Every structure is written in structure tokens, then in C-alpha cells.
């Protein structure tokens, strides 16, 4: 399942400054592994030591927060867009 992932600025150091990365995966979990393969180091920023998604980062499949869906097990369709939105506090 080819999926487009939108990467926020603070994580673009893992993606060679790319704001979007094409990945594969049938679920968010699989997508995270695919992302780690192409952008080593990024998964530790998105998940804690026990593999849970960090609670200061939102994951949206298209426009829907995955907490409304199945969380890490949310299924992905060909052409979906996954957005990673971290909490920020700049004023």
C-alpha cells in the first residue's frame, strides 16, 4: 500500500529535509517500520521505548485523527495521506 507521509519540520533531519516521504504499509504500525527503514532514527521520535505512539504527536489518516479510528492498527488504503503533527508552542 503506497502511502504519502507528511513530515513536520523538526523531523525532517531524518528525511534529508524532505517534507513528504512515500512509504508502504497496510496499517500505521507497518508504515512506521517502513518509515524507519527509509529514514533511520525517526521511529524513536514517534514511539516510546515500549513501541507506543508518543502522546505529543498526532497522526492523521487523511483528515481523521487515528484515535477516532483503530490507533496503530488503523488500516491504510492505497493513496492515503498520513500527517504527523507534533505539539508546538512557538508564539
Amino acid at each position, binding site marked *: 500500500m503506497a502511502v504519502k507521509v507528511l513530515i513536520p*519540520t523538526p523531523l525532517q533531519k531524518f528525511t534529508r529535509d524532505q517534507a513528504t516521504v512515500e512509504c508502504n504499509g497496510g496499517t500505521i504500525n507497518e508504515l512506521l517500520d517502513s518509515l524507519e527503514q527509509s529514514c533511520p532514527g525517526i521511529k524513536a521520535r514517534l514511539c516510546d521505548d515500549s513501541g507506543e505512539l*508518543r*502522546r*505529543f504527536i498526532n497522526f492523521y489518516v487523511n483528515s481523521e*485523527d487515528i484515535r477516532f479510528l483503530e490507533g496503530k492498527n488503523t488500516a491504510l488504503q492505497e493513496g492515503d495521506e498520513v500527517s504527523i503533527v507534533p505539539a*508546538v508552542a512557538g508564539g
Partner: protein
Amino acid sequence: MTMLNLTPTELERYRRQIMLPGFGEEAQQRLKASTVLVTGVGGLGGTAALYLAVAGVGKLILVRGGKLRLDDMNRQVLMTQDWVGKPRVFQAMATLRALNPDVEIEALCEYITPENVDRLVQSSDMALDCAHNFGERDVLNAACVRWGKPMVEAAMNDMEAYLTTIIPGQTPCLSCIFPEKPNWDRRSFGVLGAVSGTLACLTALEAIKLITGLGEPLLSQLLTIDLSRLEFAKRRPYHDPDCPVCGHADKQAVAHPFTPPLLLTRG
């Protein structure tokens, strides 16, 4: 509700916005009767306060500790260079008063704390959350939920930003959207004045919409903004029924439902 008559000067000053379809003198009166709390009066909050002042909001409460630094000057448009080293919130008050003497302004050279937040929120009809750290943002969010006051949440990093309008009991609160906060260094990212200013204009516009009923505010929607590519998207942020901050606000809200325009709920 308390409607305040507009003076001939005010009718002339605000003539071009009163002309807007769906605005009119009534919307202007609503603005005049409103008090808006603005925190973190910097590149974001200061510029948002500027647009609320020129729009004719009746009273602004500006809360920001600390002194002006030279490296604030690329974005803090209420400041003048001769003020470097002095408390910035008083210069913000002076600039806004010069722009519009009809707006009442209270300026506190303090940060938002658990000690001062309740009085500030209770004194206001709504708040703009423009602080430069998560601590102040969380304290303000919790107080707005506690007192049932709307809060516009606006935050940025580099060329990216997000915006949402929170109505306790109706929409997700900041804690629903981000239950935890990262270790985040407020001086570790770059900022252009035009970026904080863009977000500030949208923030002020949300406040004006909520007060007047103009247009549609960003309720239960998170606007994500990437200004490096001019990508704007609206997303549906998570509303946590078990949120430790607002999880019980839904029940309270039944007794005091919020209906825009904001001041319709006033006695």
C-alpha cells in the same frame, strides 16, 4: 446582553468593517462589549492584539513577562528599538493605545501561572493562547475549561503552525489534542515575522468571528499550516471523552451552553 452604543467617531472609524455582509453595527457593538485576554504578547500574541485593537475590541488584557530583546525585533511589531531591555508588555500597551485610544488596555508584566490565571480568565470573555511555552498554555487551557471560556489555540514552529478554536464542552480542548508535551526548546527554531504574523491574523480573526458571529470559526477543526509550501489543511482533532482536563466539561456545558456570538450568553 449589554449592548454599548457606538459614538460618531467609532461609526466612522469602523465604517469599512461595519459594511461587511453579516457584520453591521450590532457586530461592532459586540466587539466593543468584549474583553479578550492575550497571553505571550510576542510575534504572535502582540500582532493578534494589534488586529483586535484596530477592530475595536472593548478591552484587551495583555499578559507577558520579561524584557524586550533585540532578537525579538524581527517579529514583535508593537515594539520599538529604543525599548530593548524594558518590559515589552508596557510598550505593547502604549503602541495599541496610540493606534486606537478607544480600546481599554490592561497590561501585566507576568507569565500565566496557576496563581493568576483564574482571575484573568474570569475577567475575560475569551482568551488567545499565544504563549511561547507549553506550561503557560496548559495552565490557560485548564482555566478556560474551568470557567467555560472559549480559547483560540495558536502555535508555530519554523514555517509551520496550527490553529483551532476551543469551546469547553463542545470541542476538544488542548489536552484532548495533545495529552502530553515534548521537551521543547523555545529558542531552538527559527522564526520569520511574516510567519508569526500570518498566524496572528488568523488568530485575531477567530476571536472576531466568535464575538460577532461572522463566518464560521474553526470549531473541532485543527488548521495545519505549512507556509514554506503554502499548504493549509483542516483536520478533525481527537475529542477525548475521558480527558483529564475537559472530560467532565461536557456535562457542565449542558447548564451553560455556549452559542456564538459570544456575548449572547451574557446576562
